[in-house]
């Protein structure tokens, strides 16, 4: 995504004044500063660029009180799973744990969003800039907001930007992100979900595809055979991106940097690490996440001493869904096809212990079928 020119980032469309809901608000009522001062330098003293972060209660919340009430439980604001996951991997020594926490805060927390950074501007994490001249966007635009952050994996999958992999079929039907990911999911509901799959209002394929188990529907038999055994993505997603070895630090000028190894396109079926009544499937698609035992070495040696506490191949829902995929062309494209499964050999030996609960043993791989 092309960044905006500096003046474009702060240009306001004068038709904002005609917005029946927000047009009568003075700029300073949300942003502070002195609107009567003709000197731009002094006029900007005390100006708050994003008045909806970290607390929107006095601004957006003055009218949108029900949404603002749950703001602090929206994963887009809290990024709480980062804290939880990295906390689980971190050394139990308090001093080391604190250093890891500070490093995570300094590096990983910059990717948060807010009311304003979805509905008024591009997120700060992608250099910001007003969307459509500060006109309020009821539905955040997909490419300048959602995939501006969710770019490396979701954007490339959904739009078919990974070489040789077609776009998601839903993209070809012109679905925007909010078709599946509703405002209720985005805004938080007051609970503290363990991860994004734990969010109560998250999408489920069967919400739309509610007739796949109907005996009169096409392919009902296959859907019944695999029901609660494999996740939809196991049959219907294409190869997706996996990331490795993220290391963070600061350069000589004190600016934060990250380094990751080149990502790879892969497709791995593993055991469901989030198996529950809500997600009963035994087999799911797993994606390698960039965390590494040395991610925070720049700040503290052996910071992630409990690295093996969680798998590095994580539950994934690739966004490149197709009706026909290489693995569902025939039964034996999957059955007996060890290449598709996250076997011990497919996992970096240093990470086998961490992934012990998601690795598929050879005897668990469904046997070839007589066709």
């Amino acid at each position, binding site marked *: 995504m092309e960044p905006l*020119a*500096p*003046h474009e980032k*702060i*240009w*306001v*469309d*004068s038709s904002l*004044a005609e917005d029946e809901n927000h047009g009568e608000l*003075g*700029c*300073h009522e949300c*942003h502070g*500063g002195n*609107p*009567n*001062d*003709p000197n*731009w330098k002094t*006029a900007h003293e005390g100006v708050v660029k994003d008045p909806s972060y970290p607390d929107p209660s006095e601004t957006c919340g003055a009218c949108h009180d029900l949404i603002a009430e749950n703001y602090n439980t929206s994963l887009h604001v809290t990024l709480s799973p980062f804290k939880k996951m990295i906390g689980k991997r971190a050394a139990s020594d308090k001093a080391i744990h604190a250093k890891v926490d500070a490093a995570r805060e300094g590096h990983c927390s910059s990717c948060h969003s807010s009311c304003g950074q979805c509905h008024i501007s591009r997120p700060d994490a992608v250099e910001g800039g007003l969307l459509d001249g*500060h006109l309020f966007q009821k539905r955040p635009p997909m490419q300048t907001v959602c995939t501006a952050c969710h770019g*490396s994996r979701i954007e490339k999958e959904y739009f078919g930007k990974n070489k040789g992999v077609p776009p998601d079929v839903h993209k070809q039907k012109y679905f925007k992100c909010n078709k599946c990911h509703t405002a209720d999911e985005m805004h938080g509901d007051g609970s503290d979900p363990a991860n994004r799959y734990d969010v109560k209002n998250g999408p489920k394929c069967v919400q739309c595809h509610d007739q796949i188990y109907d005996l009169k529907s096409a392919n009902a038999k296959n859907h019944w055979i695999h029901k609660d055994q494999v996740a939809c993505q196991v049959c219907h997603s294409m190869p997706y*991106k996996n*990331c490795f070895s*993220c290391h963070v*630090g*600061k*350069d000589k*000028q004190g*600016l*934060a*940097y*990250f*380094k*990751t*190894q*080149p*990502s790879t396109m892969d497709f791995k079926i593993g055991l469901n690490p989030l198996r529950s009544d809500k997600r009963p499937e035994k087999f799911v698609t797993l994606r390698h996440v960039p965390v590494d035992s040395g991610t925070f070495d720049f700040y503290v040696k052996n910071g992630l001493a409990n690295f093996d506490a969680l798998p590095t191949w994580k539950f994934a829902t690739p966004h490149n869904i197709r009706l026909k995929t290489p693995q569902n062309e025939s039964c034996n494209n999957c059955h007996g096809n060890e290449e598709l499964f996250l076997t011990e050999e497919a996992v970096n030996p240093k990470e086998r212990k961490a992934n012990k609960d998601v690795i598929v043993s050879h005897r668990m791989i469904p046997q070839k079928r007589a066709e």
Partner: protein
Amino acid sequence: MNSVRFVWGLFLALAVGFVLMAGVQGAAQAAEEENHCFTCHTNARKLIQITREIAEADKGKKAASAESEGEG
């Protein structure tokens, strides 16, 4: 009779003067309270000029590290 006319005339003159003064003062106050945020931020030419000034002042300052490698 003349004195009544005089008083009425004086009263009218004062009233008209007061209204005129209030109008002038109101206009001056309105000019003083011009919303400079809005007039400046809706003026692309002004914004280009100011952002150039800022860029000149920030010359040499880096916003992001050049050492980042790979996909985030």
